């Protein structure tokens, strides 16, 4: 039971867990996000695809406040952040109230990184319990029990006391997923979770993600795995040049793209030579 997602948010209008409106973000002179708006329904999986440098990772990181957009409004569950009001004070640090607001915002979602970013000095079990025990103040024994269940679900029950360096890349990434789920987020974010893996290890990780989608977790996934997107996604966003070029059902966006830019991208990915 502990591995199922948090209950569907009742406050979400029209069954949307996430509403993103008019996100903009520049790095120096380079505008990476130009007016991005989309929604994510509760219990759905959204795949974000697009060429490298298109801004798709920046969108994902904005949902976790690892990047702070210049403007735009994001609602996750019952928490809304207007990024136009988030500005560093003197000394380059955000004012306390804004830091607290972002901390609450960040707590809505869990993050799985491309390079897993496990804590190398902690065991697999400690990696998973660190957030619940240290940040959320959960009883250590309870957290360990939940962590074992999660690790069992991702197929790692034999490795709980190992250190990350003793695992394969695919196993490490599955620990990363368990770590994100342990915090009971409403939304799980995946930033190219299989891009750094050897090809034969990709299947294990995608399999776990497919199971999570089936269990009803709300997920946003930046990926290049188009077959996975076709099978699992409820919604696909194709991003290019900082805008959403095309969005909708994967059968439509990947199976029958309407825009030339989408078609060009898909051709390159599917027939690289």
């Amino acid at each position, binding site marked *: 039971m502990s591995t199922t997602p948090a209950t569907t948010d009742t406050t979400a209008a029209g069954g949307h867990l996430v509403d993103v409106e008019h996100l903009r973000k520049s790095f120096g002179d380079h505008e990476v996000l130009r007016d991005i708006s989309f929604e994510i329904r509760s219990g759905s999986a959204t795949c974000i695809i697009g060429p490298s440098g298109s801004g798709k990772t920046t969108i994902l990181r904005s949902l*976790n406040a*690892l990047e702070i957009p210049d403007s735009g409004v994001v609602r996750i569950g019952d928490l809304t952040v207007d990024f136009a009001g988030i500005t560093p004070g003197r*000394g*380059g*640090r955000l004012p306390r109230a804004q*830091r607290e607001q972002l*901390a609450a915002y*960040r*707590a809505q979602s*869990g*993050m799985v*990184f491309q*390079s897993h*970013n*496990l*804590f*190398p*000095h*902690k065991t697999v079990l400690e990696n998973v319990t*660190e*957030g619940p025990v*240290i*940040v*959320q103040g959960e009883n250590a024994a309870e957290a360990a029990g939940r962590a074992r269940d999660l690790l069992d679900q991702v197929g790692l029950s034999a490795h709980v006391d190992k*250190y*990350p*360096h*003793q695992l394969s890349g695919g196993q490490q990434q599955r620990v990363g997923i368990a*770590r*994100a789920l342990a*915090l009971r987020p409403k939304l799980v974010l995946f930033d190219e979770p299989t891009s750094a893996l050897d090809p034969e290890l990709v299947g294990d990780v995608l399999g776990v993600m497919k199971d999570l989608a089936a269990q009803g977790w709300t997920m946003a996934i930046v990926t290049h795995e188009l077959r996975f997107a076709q099978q699992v996604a409820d919604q696909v966003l194709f991003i290019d040049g900082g805008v959403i070029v095309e969005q909708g059902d994967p059968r439509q966006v990947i199976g029958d793209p309407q825009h030339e830019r989408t078609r060009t991208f898909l051709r390159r990915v599917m027939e690289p030579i």
Partner: protein
Amino acid sequence: MTLGLAAPAGAAPAGDVTTAVRQDGIPETLRVGTEGVYSPFSYHDSKGKLTGYDIELMDAVAAKLGVKVEYVETPWDAMFAALEADKFDIVANQVTRNDERAAKYDLSVPYIDTTGVVVVAEGNSTIKSLTDIKGKRAAENLTSNWSDVARDAGAEVVGMEGMTESIEALRQGRVDVVINDKLAISNYLATVKNPGVKIVTETKDVSQSVYAARKGSGYMDEINRTIVELKANGTEKRIYDKYFGAASSEASRWDLIRNNAWPLLVKMVTATIPLTAITFAIGLVAALGVALARMSSNPFVSFLGRAYISAIRGIPLLVLLFLIFFGLPQFGIKLSPWTAAIIGLSANVAGYAAETIRGAILSLPRGQWEAAQTIGMGYGTSLRRIILPQAARVAVPPLSNTLLSLLKDTSLVSTILVVEMFRQAQIAAAPTFEFFTMYALAALYYWVACTILSYFQGRTETRLNRYVTA
């Protein structure tokens, strides 16, 4: 040890006590600055007791005055700085009277007269008089009056730590001549086997040894009367004969090592090692603060961190120690030798270790900060739980270097009146002039201590590496 200074921080340090003053202006406990390594005037006998001509005479003066006396052992080069910083009340260390000193300090009437002697290497036949040293190289202590005598005679003066080093330089042919006190040189020649140097002539000037106190001390008249009395009743003559009447008994080099191997080790364990441990601990904590300040996104805080590191790396440790111990009293801040030593050494460690820690933190992938952030950790928790444990692994080898340097650098605090192992070696060597034997023994001890520390460094690294190597 009979001296308060010899004990670690727990004991009251002599240099700091300001005692009650009697009606005639003399402190009830007279604090006396003396070298403790200037045989036969002020040195430690084979049992470690401070003795010598100047010591016994001062004991007699104090007894006559009816006050207690407390000796504060101070290297000669720091003697007048320490007097001015109120580390003690009066200097009893063969201070030669001259006009400059008379203008600056309260000087007593002379208690002993001596002349200077010109000393050359045994085979030297070209220098026969003071006029022959014109253009030659003379080894002298720069703050002693003998360097003035040599300079006035036209010699080029080479600065030396003390008389023994000067004579060693003469024997090795690095310099041509040494001018020093006749009594001191005679005692040296009588004590050392095959000294390899000889006295060729005496200087014309009679030099008069006096006590020196800060201007306006108010009690020099009382002391002068006492000196005259002690000379008249034969007490001074009895002490003189004891130290200059016959050659001192001579201990062999091996006796010296045998007698001092244990006391030196004790000093290492009770002074050098605690000082190293305390200052390293304080220094590391401060270093973390400085490193975090330096990395702060606030430009002002970052500037402070940068400025601190720049200052510590730019100021020699010895100078820093002198500024803290002798400089701060001018602003009303008087610190005991141990306090000053701990502050100076800790501040030094903080400056160097800060850069090591900063480098170690920066060497970690940014993803570690981000992962900590995404599981809800703030800056402090991320640092404590995720970043520092990993940074420690990177920082241990360079920090071990800092620790070894620190252990050796503690020898510098001997100059601000802390009796640690190196100072103990000097004290032991003084009566026999076998400084180099004792320095070699001290070097051996430092080496052994560093080797032991290196062993623990290896073990720490293995422990911290357990999660990165299978």
